[in-house]
């Protein structure tokens, strides 16, 4: 009987869950949407948090940046858990292959001295920067309102520790399979003069109350660090006989391109919200006014250190150009409010 059954087509009563039907009509939808829309509870929380007054367990007031309907924002990458881990399994697999290739041929050991110094005193120490960015992202995972948004923060948090681990593995490889370079890197992060403005900035961002402000402040730093350290030096690495650096850097540039997609979409969604656009633009302007200059100074100290090791790359000069290009899209979204 079951064999026969399989030849009959049973008509579906509905194509998806009711909340999705209410939004999009009764049609088949992606696994991303089914696994994301309206998942977070909204109402009737039984008890108030003991850890914060005047807030519910889920509360839009955890940030100044709001959306009329939090699901106006969706992830342009459409990552839900499975597609996310599949994408990252690919990234880490590629990275692992790169690293094996470099290790088998001792390519890190053969890097020109300036490039080794760059890795050792600037790039590998950024594993701690990534770790700080992870702490910032995971605050959004808990406190952002709505599944579409917090999900991006959750993945970003996991990405950041993944980035920190990739940088650490470069450090281990650079140290010939030992922890020596990681110890050097940590000392540089904690004491190195060229990294103190950045560390101070990250610490001050980590303690902000508004998760979105800290996420955006870190993004302002990312928007300088990534183009400068990874993409910006890539070309010079190829010219300067530092192929190994280019091979490593490509993975970080690829990650940052991915990260940009959702952050830019989110900023645009905030800035154009039907009810909260004005307040959101003001809040975004406040973030820029407070943090853009600080980010620039911190990264300028880092760029100066790059110039010490690799004067030909003219990183400080590149920074000025990068900062200009990064400011404009934000400024246009918020009506040119901030400098």
């Amino acid at each position, binding site marked *: 009987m079951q064999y026969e059954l399989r030849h009959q087509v049973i008509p579906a009563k509905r194509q998806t869950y009711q909340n999705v039907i209410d939004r999009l009509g009764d049609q088949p939808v992606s696994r991303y949407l089914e696994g994301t829309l309206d998942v977070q509870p909204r109402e009737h929380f039984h008890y*108030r948090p*003991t*850890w*914060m*007054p005047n807030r519910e367990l889920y509360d839009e007031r955890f940030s100044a940046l709001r959306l009329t309907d939090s699901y106006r924002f969706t992830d342009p990458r459409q990552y839900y858990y499975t597609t996310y881990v599949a994408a990252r399994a690919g990234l880490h697999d590629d990275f692992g292959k790169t690293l094996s290739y470099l290790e088998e041929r001792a390519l890190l050991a053969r890097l020109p001295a300036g490039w080794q110094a760059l890795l050792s005193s600037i790039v590998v120490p950024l594993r701690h920067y990534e770790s700080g960015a992870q702490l910032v992202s995971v605050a959004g995972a808990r406190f952002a309102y709505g599944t579409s948004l917090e999900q991006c923060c959750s993945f970003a948090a996991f990405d950041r520790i993944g980035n920190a681990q990739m940088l650490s593995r470069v450090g281990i490889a650079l140290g010939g399979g030992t922890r020596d370079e990681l110890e050097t890197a940590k000392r540089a992060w904690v004491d190195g003069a060229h990294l103190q403005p950045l560390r101070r900035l990250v610490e001050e961002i980590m303690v902000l109350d508004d998760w979105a402000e800290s996420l955006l402040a870190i993004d302002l730093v990312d928007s300088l660090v990534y183009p400068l350290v990874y993409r910006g030096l890539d070309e010079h690495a190829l010219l300067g006989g530092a192929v190994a650096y280019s091979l490593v850097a490509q993975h970080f540039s690829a990650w940052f391109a991915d990260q940009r997609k959702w952050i830019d979409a989110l900023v645009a969604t905030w800035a154009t919200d039907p009810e909260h656009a004005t307040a959101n633009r003001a809040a975004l302007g406040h973030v820029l006014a407070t943090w853009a200059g600080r980010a620039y100074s911190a990264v300028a100290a880092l760029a100066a250190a790059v110039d010490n090791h690799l004067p030909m790359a003219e990183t400080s000069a590149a920074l000025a150009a990068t900062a200009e290009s990064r400011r404009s899209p934000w400024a246009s979204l918020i009506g040119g409010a901030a400098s």
Partner: protein
Amino acid sequence: MSVKALYDYEFPSMDRAEVFDDDVLVYVHWEGNPIFCSAACFRVPKTMPFGEFVTSFVVPWAESDPDFDPERTQHWRLFNDPLDVADTKSLADLGIGHKTLLTFAA
């Protein structure tokens, strides 16, 4: 012992008497009849006479058990104490306040 919190953790009770205005919540349990998993909860005016309460709330609920005989309700108690019921007395007069538990046998 009280709640450990980072601030003065004090909230009004969700179901305090005043939010029900002139009504009270009353629970009624038919003792020894497991066909009803639990006591029933009713919202009733405090001034309602007990007889009317039984006729308009308790009986319609209890008669979903086909063996229910309204004439045989007896042994009313208010929490653990016997309750001397009188049809004409109001719930308030009988001491049946907010969130009290009545039980009967039948």
